[in-house]
């Protein structure tokens, strides 16, 4: 099997844990290196943001955001079902994440 070409099959995403700002990201792949679940791969094109191949396997620990040398390049998105509610104490105004 050594000589055969193999492929990555991107998963249809149940969620989109990460978004990259292509204007800010320098494609250094530091986030790829530190992701313990290994959900990203480097983009085949030099300098481009990595590809999130396995979005469903994200643990949402934010290590990628913490190590990113270009603040704002990566956003860790909350799962839409996790829109936690809070209320302003003095006005009663409601907010959702």
């Amino acid at each position, binding site marked *: 099997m050594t000589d055969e070409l193999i492929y990555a099959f991107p998963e249809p995403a149940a969620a989109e844990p990460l978004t990259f700002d292509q204007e800010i990201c320098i494609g250094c792949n530091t986030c790829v290196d530190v992701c313990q679940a290994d959900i990203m791969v480097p983009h085949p094109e030099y300098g481009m943001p990595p590809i999130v191949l396995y979005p469903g*396997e994200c643990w949402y620990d*934010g290590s990628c955001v913490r190590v990113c040398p270009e603040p704002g390049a990566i956003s860790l998105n909350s799962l839409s079902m996790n829109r936690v509610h809070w209320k302003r104490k003095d006005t009663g105004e409601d907010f959702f994440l």
Partner: protein
Amino acid sequence: MAAPSNPLEWPYPVEWDETSSVATDVLVLGGGIAGCWAAIGAAKRGAKVVLVEKGATITSGAGGSGCDHWESAATNPCSRVSPEELTEALIDGHGGYCNGISHYIECREGYDRLLDLETMGGKIRDTEDEFQGAEFRDEDSKLLFAYDYENRFTLRVWGSTFKAALYNECRNLGVKVFDRLMATSLLSLGGQQGARVTGATAVHTRTGRFFVFAAKATVLCMSRPARLWLFSPGMPGVSEFRPPQCNGDGHAMGWRAGVEFTMMEKSVRAEWSGDRSFPPYGTGNTHNTWYACSMVDSTGREIPWADRDGNILIDVSQRYRPAQGQRLFLKGGCEPDVPTYEFQGPDILPVEELLQQGYKLPFYADLSAMSELERKAIWGLMVGEEGKTKIPILENYTRAGFDPDRDLLQSYGEGWQSGAFPPQERQLFGFPGGMVNDWTLRTNVTGLYAAGDQLFASNCHGHAAATGHYAGRHAADYAASAPEPATDQDQVDHEKTRAYAPAMRTSGTSWKQVNASIARIMQHYCGATKSEELLTTGLDALRDAKDGEADVLSARNPHELLRSLEVLNILTNAELVMHACLARRASARHLHFMRSDYPEVDPPEWYKFVTVRLENEAAVEGELAIDYFGSLKENYEASNGDYVGAASK
């Protein structure tokens, strides 16, 4: 960047079938908190050390992204309990079903590890004087305390600084770190189950290259089993509390190698999973990281706190004090899961009682009702430093406008939970089962040591750190005089065939389908109430799943192979749990263990550790006295005559 819809050519070199061989004195499997400390402990003893980690050691493990409090630091200069007293409290608080050895190590050496961390660049005290004047701060040492402010044995820490410091220390000490390598099996003398362990095999999760490690001593430092009852095919990464790759590979490898386990029959009704609950520490509550937050009901009425005797506590400060006549209380991760009056700490009144008194749902955390320093200690220090709170909770909530000075954060469940689980959805939480250990943290198998979540009745960060370092140095001592390890080539060849099998198939079942099958079987046959017939049928169902699905698992690249091998380990762990449940023919309250065919709870003749292990591929039952570890202080000192911790220097 979102994934493209077409297949991509695999971006890493493909090295299927290529093999690397590595020899070392001490092999550490697992690069989380326990694994890094084991490597450091062994390397400082002069051993040549290899560390193998499935992810990236700089962040990997359940404690890789943070830790907000360090429990059982009984030797810190402000502590008012001795390691002996605190360990006895932990044992009694769990009805005796506790690892006296590992928790004594935690109580005795945990603070030494914190001092070590400080020299590596970790932050363990309030050096910036942010909390000057707080009642939970010692002004001389600048240490901050959590929970029991009188006895001061749990410390608030800046744990997001820890993992990178540990990783760098490993590198500085010459530990050879292999990231993205999944250990697949333990090698043994003559390939025999139960014989001396002589190393391990591994597969690279990006290239598929095979690795053979020969080691004089091996330390297993992997996670407790997970994804046994809980699995989310859509979002497998948040199926459980811990990271997706923390699924118990070490338990499965150990079981296959003949390691003896105990307390594997213990599981609790699930407390957290991404499918049912909000992110940990991300909702209003009064426990753990959020202890002892003020709460209000939906009308703004303050929710009362009470001590263990039901006396209402007037001010916030009392929530951090033992009750009248109480020596100490246990909180945080070491809170007894079945409340024990002797160590029960303050809490809000039970929800049912509050509703009867006219309090209205939902309840909210009201940080604004606390003093500025208490508020900052919860929101900013603990929520920020704990687990994965820094980015998804502290940063994202703040960016969305949450203001702890003005806003009430909704609560969605009781205790620390933010969801409700049916009884058949279970989890290994609250001092779960694991490998049996002696006073050197060696398992029953020669050459094999265990630390952290690999041990029975394991706990959290401080326990992993203390036992990791301890196991590492004892493994190094053994390796110093151990014979050279001989690798059994037949065993290696057999394992290579097994490990590569999913990659050899061009079609078959996906790992997600197999994991979902296992979870269904465990819920049906190993739920809240068990019986011999349920469990034996469950074992048949697992065998059927193995023959029908696991044996046709298919992986199209090394990443899918990693997930496939994990799910085979999960299947093995499911069998281990079923065997352990069959072996305890009595119900046990502290083990959350109910047998319908043996309904008497805690009959005296079953007050013991029941053990299971594989011998010639058959499960063998055994038992150990509940106090098999003997005198804590004497046995510890007999095994560690030359140890001098940083705290006593």
